């Protein structure tokens, strides 16, 4: 989505700040709020996503559940995940979660990406892939704490939910929001969404869901896609929503300390060699060595003559 009218605050594989002269007075953090307690699993959002983004995934096979396709793909950027959970009273709870990019404030994909400008973060918080800069290495998959990006088999580029950055940039809400018949999906400023979520959580608590809460994980600096969960104390019930997601320490080491230290180590090694040459000088062989070598040879040969 290159021709955007949104301010970019972060680009992948870039060591200097982004253009920052604009005041950003119009930039407000946005968020999509997914209320799992209102979701009926109709998948209208999946269809809207396909339609707006012009995606048609391959027809798959029925895996014996409502979940279809079974997983996110390069052509399916959002997906209803259906979890059948037995609660402590022995009742079945059908927990349905719309999965897709969480648009982390501290995005692991962007941190891991080696290609300048293939992943950007806008001032409004949306994390977007610019596929024309994508080299297809899959480091974003390695960096993502939510297992979201998918590399297309067709063009070897990474794809995921854009939060409809093209629509948001012209003041529209994302396509999925448009399609939701129950109001489980809402979109607005992050602040408004947090407030709306707080009201929802209060309502849920009054109905007996004492652990209801907002999922806005601080380990990734908060997200611009948030969930209202009936069981916020156990997010993993919702088909493996991570409990305390963060950019893995391994990825932070690889993309943090290792980079400057690695360059420094290489530069130091090369300079050490250069200055050794300057200070100590080359190790040369001169005519005296040749004479000693010839003497050694003569000695060895005469010794072997004596002991045939």
């Amino acid at each position, binding site marked *: 989505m290159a021709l955007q009218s949104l301010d970019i605050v972060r680009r992948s594989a870039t060591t200097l700040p982004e253009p920052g002269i604009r005041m950003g007075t119009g930039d407000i953090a946005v968020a999509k709020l997914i209320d799992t307690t209102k979701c009926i699993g109709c998948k209208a959002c999946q269809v809207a996503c396909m339609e707006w983004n012009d995606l048609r995934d391959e027809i798959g096979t029925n895996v014996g559940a409502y979940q279809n396709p079974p997983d996110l793909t390069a052509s399916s950027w959002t997906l209803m995940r259906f979890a059948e959970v037995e609660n402590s009273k022995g009742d079945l709870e059908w927990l349905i979660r719309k999965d897709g990019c969480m648009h982390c404030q501290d995005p692991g994909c962007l941190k891991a990406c080696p290609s300048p400008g293939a992943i950007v973060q806008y001032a409004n918080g949306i994390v977007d892939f610019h596929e024309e800069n994508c080299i297809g290495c899959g480091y974003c998959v390695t960096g993502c704490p939510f297992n979201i990006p998918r590399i297309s088999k067709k063009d070897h580029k990474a794809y995921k939910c854009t939060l409809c950055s093209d629509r948001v940039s012209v003041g529209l809400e994302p396509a999925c929001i448009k399609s939701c018949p129950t109001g489980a999906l809402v979109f607005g400023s992050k602040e408004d969404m947090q407030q709306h979520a707080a009201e929802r959580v209060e309502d849920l608590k009054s109905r007996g869901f004492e652990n209801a809460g907002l999922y806005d994980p601080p380990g990734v600096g908060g997200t611009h896609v948030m969930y209202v969960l009936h069981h916020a104390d156990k997010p993993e019930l919702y088909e493996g929503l991570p409990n305390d997601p963060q950019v893995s320490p*391994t990825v932070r080491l690889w993309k943090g300390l290792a980079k400057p230290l690695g360059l420094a180590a290489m530069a130091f090694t090369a300079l050490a060699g250069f200055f050794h040459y300057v200070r100590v000088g080359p190790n040369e062989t001169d005519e005296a060595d040749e004479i000693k070598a010839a003497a050694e040879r003569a000695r060895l040969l005469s010794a072997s003559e004596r002991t045939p």
Partner: protein
Amino acid sequence: MSSAPRRTDTLLRYNANDRTNHWSTAIAFILAALSGLALFHPALFGLSALFGGGPWTRILHPFIGLLMLLAFLFLAGRFWSHNHMEPRDWEWLRRYRDVINNREDRLPEVGKYNAGQKLVFWVIVVCLAGLLLSGLVIWRAYFSQYFPIGLIRLSSVIHAICALVLICTILVHIYAAIWVKGSVHAMTRGTVTPGWAWKHHRAWYREMIHAANSRSRPD
């Protein structure tokens, strides 16, 4: 280099196959290092232009790495037996101050390779093994799908660390060849002078004389 009369008493240190094998490995290493560094640090991403851009760098890098490994396997087969560490090698390493200050007369005798060269050899063996295993895990186009995400993350770090150690080691290797005059000629033209062999690899020099002597004497 050109004005000096051609010597007739030089010793053959590397034959044409050794040299071809060494330089095939070296060329593959340089290409693998440049393409890998392009993906390692944003400041070096420009190196990807040498390979036809980012996607081509991503496509080519693992194949170049495999070529380097293949070339090195042959090289290791040639040089393996000369690179076992011996007691005198550890003594040689303990006297590293004499080594770096060109005081070779104070060092233990050296065979075909000195302890530094042997260490370079074994570091390359270990790093290439690490690069191969971690590289397969992070090779997204063909293999990553078969591995859990934790292992992919770990392999990414291991790949970077092995590559850095290897690059630094090869920098030392290259510098040593520039530092010890006559070494580059040995690997480009194959021969060394008796004085060079006597000074830097005296035990090997004796072996060469004995070998030549026993060849020239019919039994």
